[in-house]
């Protein structure tokens, strides 16, 4: 209790060490938890965007799509796919496709996507992006609209800002593939777990005649990028922490001359070298403990704030606090040298001081 009381009475001398350690630890924790949460959120978002969907975009318009689709389906056991042809107009883009809702989780404000069954029954159906729907006077499902001189019944309306990593749907009108007369761009969306298609595609489509974008590939790239960012930030935070710890050691060393008299008095009234040594170690431990507790509490507050603001969900992973198991002993180990120097001060030298 006396040692704690001493520490409390001399808290001003330790306040800067505590503050710098606290800031460095908080930075380290915040970087670690925020980047981890960011990665989890990103991975979750990519999952929501249906991770298995790949996009094959043809650069050469002369591709025999039906043969290609059949070949792909046979070779890679692809059961769900949709050709996707885009025809650019001034105010909107026409997209000819099959039922995309079997590939992408699309959110509808009204109705749903036209089904392959409707198409087979020659039902002229259209799905509207949100902005186009508004431009067309907000027709309800079942109402007919005229597109490029033909009448189509509205099947569904997508919600505002519908997008995935392949397209933004607000200015698109989706029509059944069979109505396609001309197109400027064509793609094939399909679901496949097969990791590598390029060899066969090179053979069939010709090298450099296509683009293959796989969501898993994108996810891996994003994750790698984030991990690299996290590693850089963690390294910088660790440097900050090391500098802060060295600052604490420096403070302890530079305070030795001013504490010489105190050490002398304590030795004169019965303190052993080991008592002085452990006092310095205890002080270092208290500095590290207070800094760590402060940093942990601030980190929790930050996580709660981030969660309340809805930026992303930080999760409940507390494994990051394991870092304290390393940092607190490291701080004490660094203070070993000043503690030994303090313990070696002789009484007569100290009292004369």
């Amino acid at each position, binding site marked *: 209790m*006396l040692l704690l009381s*001493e520490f409390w*009475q001399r808290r001003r001398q330790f306040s800067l060490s505590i503050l710098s350690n606290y800031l460095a630890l908080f930075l380290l924790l915040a970087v670690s938890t925020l980047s981890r949460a960011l990665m989890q959120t990103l991975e979750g978002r990519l999952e929501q965007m249906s991770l298995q969907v790949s996009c094959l975009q043809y650069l050469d318009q002369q591709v025999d799509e039906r043969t290609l689709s059949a070949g792909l389906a046979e070779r890679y056991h692809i059961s769900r796919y949709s050709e996707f042809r885009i025809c650019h107009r001034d105010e909107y883009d026409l997209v000819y496709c099959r039922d995309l809702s079997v590939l992408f989780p699309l959110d509808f404000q009204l109705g749903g996507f036209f089904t392959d069954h409707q198409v087979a029954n020659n039902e002229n159906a259209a799905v509207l992006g949100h902005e186009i729907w508004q431009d067309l006077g907000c027709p309800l499902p079942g109402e007919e609209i005229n597109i490029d001189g033909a009448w189509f019944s509205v099947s569904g309306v997508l919600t505002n800002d519908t997008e995935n990593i392949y397209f933004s749907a607000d200015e698109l009108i989706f029509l059944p593939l069979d109505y396609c007369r001309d197109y400027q761009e064509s793609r094939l969306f399909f679901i496949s777990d097969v990791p590598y298609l390029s060899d066969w595609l090179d053979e069939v489509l010709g090298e450099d005649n296509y683009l293959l974008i796989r969501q898993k590939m994108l996810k891996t790239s994003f994750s790698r990028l984030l991990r690299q960012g996290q590693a850089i930030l963690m390294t910088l935070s660790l440097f900050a922490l090391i500098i802060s710890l060295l600052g604490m050691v420096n403070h302890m060393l530079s305070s030795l001359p001013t504490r010489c008299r105190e050490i*002398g*008095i304590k*030795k*004169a*009234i*019965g303190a052993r070298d080991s008592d002085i040594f452990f006092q310095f170690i205890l002080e270092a431990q208290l500095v590290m403990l207070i800094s760590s507790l402060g940093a942990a509490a601030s980190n929790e507050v930050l996580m709660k704030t981030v969660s309340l603001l809805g930026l992303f969900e930080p999760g409940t992973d507390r494994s990051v606090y394991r870092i304290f198991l390393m940092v607190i002993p490291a701080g004490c180990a660094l203070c070993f040298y000043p503690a030994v120097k303090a313990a070696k001060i002789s009484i*007569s030298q100290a009292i004369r001081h």
Partner: protein
Amino acid sequence: MLIELNKAVKRYNSGEMEVRALDGISLQIEQNCFVAVLGPSGCGKSTLLNILAGYEKLDEGEYRFAGQKVEDDHLLRNRVAMIFQDHQLLEYLSVRENLLLPSLYRRQRVEPARLKQVSRQLGIEGLWKRMPSQLSGGEKQRCGIARALLYDCRLILADEPTGSLDRANGQALMAIFAQLHSEGCSIIMVTHDRQLAERCQRIIRMEDGHVIAQ
């Protein structure tokens, strides 16, 4: 015999010069004595006290305490208490905490009754919560003495205890020493003041590291 010093030598190096602060002193001090060590500045009085307290080691000679040879300060830790000229209280601790601090290092529990008794004896009972900066010179010195008395030491060493006190406080301090001596405590006091020294049982005169008269 409480203290036996045999041909004790203590040297200090000051640049290229060697100073013999104690130059072959031999000394015997019996139990329950009240001794004054008198001499001019630099004659080795404080060094003698530091050696007796175990703060410094002899370069040559032998030091025996209660018949046992003193090799390091372990033997003396719980038996000798030092009273300094400038009280040596820790400024950031209250009077009470200063009094109790030695108990932490000596691994001795101080009974509250004992703390009260010593404080009353020295008139510092009402000062427990004060910080040293709020005390007068006499009060600080009495706190320093109380800290030394709390732990039943067999020998009290006082290094010019009246040096920073006015005459009245100096006399009061001597009265306290006289009372402690009458209760069985051994006291060795370093002083410049011949009048104070004459109130002791025995006077040791020192000069240039030698005992010139006892």
